[in-house]
C-alpha cells in the first residue's frame, strides 16, 4: 500500500457539489463512487445525476420494508447501487440536473445512460482493506457520524469522543500518512473525504479525519462499486 494516496491527483474525482437543504447525501456518495469507477473503467470522468436517484430510486432493503431510498428524506448508497444496476445506469448531470427537491417525477431516459454498475460490494471493517480497495477500485462510498462536521473548518479531525451512529454519506478519495497537528505535536494519518456541502465548507469542500480507530464510525459502512467498461 502506498504511504499516501489521492484520487484527486489522478483525475478520478469531479468538482465538489452541494446537496442544499435536502437529505440526499446518499445520492452524492453513490454518484461519486460510480464516477470514480467509470473513470477507472473508461478513462472518462463524467458528472452523474443525483437527481435521477432522488426522483427514481425507491429501492428498499428486503429485510427492512420501511427503509426504502426516499429522496430528500434519506437513503443508502448500497440501495442506490442496487437501483442503478437494475435500472441500467445513471444519466449525466447535464441531462438530468440537480434541483435539491424531491417533488419531481422520474424523468429517466434509458437512451441517455452515461455509466453502468457492473457490481458493488461491502468492504470489511479493516483499515488496510479499506485502503487496498480504495487504491484498487477507486473512491469508496462511506457513511460517517457528522456531528463534528457541523462546526468543522479545517485540519485533521480526531475527536476524543464521537458517536459511531451513522447519519451521513460521503466519498473517501484518498489518505495521508501524516497531517501535522501542532496541538498534539505529532503526525496523524488521516482519510481524505469529499463532502457534498459546496466548496466553501471545510477544506474546499473536503474533510480530513484521522485513521486508526474507526473514528465517528468512518470504517463501519464502506462500499466499493465497479462500472461496466463501455464508453457513453
Amino acid at each position, binding site marked *: 500500500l502506498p504511504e499516501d494516496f489521492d484520487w484527486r491527483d489522478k483525475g478520478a474525482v469531479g468538482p465538489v457539489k452541494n*446537496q442544499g*437543504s*435536502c*437529505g*440526499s*447525501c*446518499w445520492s452524492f456518495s453513490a454518484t461519486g463512487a460510480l464516477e470514480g469507477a467509470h473513470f477507472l473503467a473508461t478513462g472518462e470522468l463524467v458528472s452523474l445525476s443525483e437527481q435521477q436517484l432522488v426522483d427514481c430510486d425507491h429501492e428498499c*432493503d*428486503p*429485510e*427492512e420494508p420501511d*427503509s*426504502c431510498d*426516499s429522496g*430528500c*428524506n*434519506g*437513503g*443508502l448508497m*448500497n*440501495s442506490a447501487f442496487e437501483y442503478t444496476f437494475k435500472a441500467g445506469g445513471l444519466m449525466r448531470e447535464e441531462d438530468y440536473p440537480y434541483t435539491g427537491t424531491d417533488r419531481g417525477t422520474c424523468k429517466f431516459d434509458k437512451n441517455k445512460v452515461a455509466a453502468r454498475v457492473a*457490481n*458493488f*460490494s*461491502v468492504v*470489511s471493517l479493516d483499515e488496510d*482493506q479499506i485502503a*487496498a*480497495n480504495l487504491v484498487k477500485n477507486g473512491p469508496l462510498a462511506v*457513511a460517517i457520524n*457528522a*456531528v*463534528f462536521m*457541523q*462546526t*468543522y*473548518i*479545517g*485540519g485533521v*479531525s*480526531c*475527536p*476524543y*469522543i464521537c458517536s459511531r451512529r*451513522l*447519519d*451521513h*454519506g460521503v466519498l473517501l478519495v484518498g489518505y495521508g500518512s501524516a*497531517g501535522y*497537528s501542532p*496541538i*498534539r505535536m505529532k503526525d*496523524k494519518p488521516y482519510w481524505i473525504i469529499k463532502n457534498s456541502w459546496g466548496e*466553501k*465548507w471545510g477544506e474546499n469542500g473536503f474533510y*480530513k479525519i*484521522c485513521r486508526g480507530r474507526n473514528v465517528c464510525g468512518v470504517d463501519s*459502512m464502506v*462500499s*466499493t462499486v465497479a462500472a461496466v467498461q463501455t464508453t457513453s
Partner: protein
Amino acid sequence: DALNGDDPLIREVVDGQDASSSNLLSAEQHHFSLFKSKFKKSYGSQEEHDYRFSVFKANLRRAARHQALDPTASHGVTQFSDLTPAEFRKQVLGLRRLRLPKDANEAPILPTSD
C-alpha cells in the same frame, strides 16, 4: 492597542462560560452579522431573526466544545451555524439506515503487504 483588539496577535475568543457580560453579547452580535453577510442569510421576521441568533449563540458554544474535544482540527462558524442539531441532521445529512442490507456482497480480501 492590544486592549482594543488592533493587535493582530490578540484573537477575540468567545468564552461560553460568561454569557451575561455585555461585551460578550456584542461580540456574539458581531459574529452573527459577519455570519449573515458571509453566508447571505436573511430571515422572514424579527422573531425568526432573534430565534436564529439564539441558535447561533448556542452553536458558538458548541463550536468551542468541539474545539476542546477535537484539538487537531479547527472548529468555528460554518454555513450551518444557525441550524439546531436536529435541523442540521434533517436538512443536510440523509443517511437512511444505520446498517447494511444483510444480502450485501462482501468484497474479496485484497493483499496489503509488498
